[in-house]
């Protein structure tokens, strides 16, 4: 089931003749008459360097990219000269700009490249033993980090599943996805390292969370999967990262969350800006996204009964004594509301405010007695 090309070169008289010609010094130089556009490109900001924003010129730029770039289906870079009939067809499946595009995607990529960090050396791992960590707090933190290790790789696997199906004309998006893949691999790495440096070891995987991950991976289209993953799931995780920084047992752990947050915020922003692009350019796809988010929200609600929920309560209360549990519940209750509030805020910013009325989270909030906050959200 492999592709082996259309030409046996050494059996091709044309090819052999070409080699002999070049050997004699006869160069064709046809490629010098590419006829491609010549552009003036420089780094507008020396501090920022030469970015894709600087390269957004003429036929090379993304502003000139139409909704459907007809013709290119191979490896030719955008703006290069190519022959439609001669190109090796990579059979891309995502060929509409609105399938993948997001406002600011070039900026997101450049930011990702300038903010790469290393889980091995950026975290003061050796300092961990300097801080006293009550056993039950460390166990709860190990459970939290086991969960993060478990879920972070979905944000490499899902974009990777779609990236190679995208037309190479959308290279800024593909580049961003590659940056997200390495970001998330690093997140899985840093949380795994934290679990295994803590003394407790790995805790349990969470079946309910796994069902959500499966639903993300099996999304019917890239945009539906992106809405579920970037906007809803990573949005929830971003709020959890902020919360986890707040309740981190040690400064080492705070550092971890500060670093992962900046990456996660970028991924959520991409999701929001992709959704906004769809709504602005192909509003007829709204219902499809509603259906995906109906299901995504349902899966998210199913996670409320996991060990994770209790681990966060123990961490927030800093122990398992009744007063600590009471305090933990108050804080985690606030987190739950905050997660939904921030999700609704992102929907509004993406121009998808109508989703809020339909959200599965509204009855949930009412049922767990948080109707007051819910009412505030609507305003």
């Amino acid at each position: 089931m492999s592709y082996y090309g259309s030409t046996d070169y050494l059996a091709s008289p044309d090819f052999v003749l070409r080699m002999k010609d070049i050997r004699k010094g006869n160069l064709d130089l046809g490629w010098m008459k590419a006829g491609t556009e010549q552009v003036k490109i420089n780094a507008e900001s020396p501090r920022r360097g030469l970015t894709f924003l600087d390269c957004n010129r003429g036929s090379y730029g993304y502003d000139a990219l139409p909704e459907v770039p007809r013709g290119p289906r191979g490896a030719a870079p955008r703006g290069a000269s190519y022959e439609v009939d001669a190109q090796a067809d990579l059979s891309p499946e995502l060929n509409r700009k609105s399938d993948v595009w997001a406002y600011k995607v070039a900026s997101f990529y450049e930011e990702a490249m300038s903010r790469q960090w290393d889980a091995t050396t950026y975290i003061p791992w050796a300092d961990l033993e300097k801080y006293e960590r009550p056993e039950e707090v460390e166990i709860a933190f190990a459970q939290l980090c086991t969960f993060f290790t478990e879920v972070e790789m979905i944000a490499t696997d899902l974009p990777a599943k779609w990236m190679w199906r995208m037309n190479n004309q959308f290279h800024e998006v593909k580049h961003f996805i590659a940056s997200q893949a390495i970001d998330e691999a690093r997140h899985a790495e840093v949380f795994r390292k934290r679990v295994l440096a803590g003394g407790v070891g790995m805790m349990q995987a969470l079946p309910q969370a796994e069902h959500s991950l499966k639903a993300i991976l099996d999304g019917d289209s890239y945009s539906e999967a992106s809405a579920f993953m970037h906007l809803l799931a990573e949005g929830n995780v971003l709020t959890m990262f902020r919360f986890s920084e707040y309740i981190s047992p040690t400064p080492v752990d705070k550092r971890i969350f500060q670093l992962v947050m900046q990456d996660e915020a970028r991924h959520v922003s991409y999701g929001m800006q992709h959704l906004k692009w769809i709504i602005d350019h192909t509003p007829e796809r709204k219902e499809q996204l509603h259906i995906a988010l109906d299901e995504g929200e349902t899966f998210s609600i199913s996670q409320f009964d996991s060990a994770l929920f209790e681990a966060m309560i123990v961490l927030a209360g800093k122990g398992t004594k009744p007063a600590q549990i009471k305090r933990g519940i108050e804080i985690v209750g606030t987190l739950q509301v905050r997660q939904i509030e921030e999700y609704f805020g992102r929907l509004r910013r993406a121009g998808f405010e109508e989703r809020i009325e339909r959200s599965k989270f509204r009855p949930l909030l009412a049922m767990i007695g948080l109707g007051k906050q819910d009412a505030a959200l609507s305003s």
Partner: protein
Amino acid sequence: MAYIAPKDYSQDPQIMAKVMKVMSGELDLSWMRVSAGPIEARPTKPGYGLTLDDINQGSYGPDRIPEIVRHNFSMAPRGAILPPGLPSLGYRLNRKSEVWSDRAAALFEEGKSRRWAPAHDVPWSALEASGLEELQQVAMRQLCTGFVSIGLVCADVPARWVWQMNQEFHEVKYLLCLQMIDATRIAEAFRKRALYGSGALGVDSRELGELLKMLFDSGTYPCASASMNLSLFSFVQGLGREIAARARNAVDLFLGTRLTQDATRFIAYGIDHLRQLMRARPAEAESLNGHLDAIENGVVGWLGARETLEPLVILAGGLDPIARFYARQTDEYFERCAASGLGDRRGRSPIPKLVSLIGG
């Protein structure tokens, strides 16, 4: 939606009851009594940080991964407790030897520590005085156009496979994510190199496109790995060295050096992956060699394409240096094939015939 929840949890009284129970202070906490086994990993080499090798101990390390993974098809981290009810995420690469390299962890660590950003790490302003004549500038831009295509497709190849790999092989998955960004950076850096100043991209090479499609459409992951990591990147690495050696400005020196450095990681993984595959399943050698027979035909097309060979000739000032470069690189490539356990490929490969045609 392809995967639907078995019920609408927002309307599920059982979930609500559980939530209310916890919110009223009645916690179960049974999860606190079950750990997969204590471990307190610490950096073993001061100054190196906490590496993957440092944490790969006991059941958390890769040594106990069986050749065929049958116990976990979820995203549960290796070594975690696996409660009942974990779904299958449908992984299709579940044999360790299909993907594994003992060097994956170290290569991942190296890649992270040698990261660079084309936007601000490349001294772009050095191109104001590139030291190249107009003809050479156009030739360089044509070469860059090819590298952009290579970068684009070589980011897609690992992307095509990584999501199908079992999570037990997370070191390899991390490395493939690194390959995605390394290849992306090749595309980005050479695109910017071609366009900087009063620049332009050149012509898409049909032959290069054909080769890249062969890698992209390889039928198995070992075939894709052999074609991309071993075959293609052996020559990409050589081209990086050539660009660095012939550089007349700081930008081309930088790009050539970094291209060589990054390509070396692809090759190192490819060799070790294939070597371990050959040890575990020597019968695979013939199918891989058969695949490489066809891939090397693609390499011949690429190296002999006017869009590849003629710019190299112009930049080197003649064909002879390029003929020597091709010959040297081909020798290195065959040594790597042998080191991978594929045996001596010289007799069956079409590349030496191309080298003779060019070398006269």
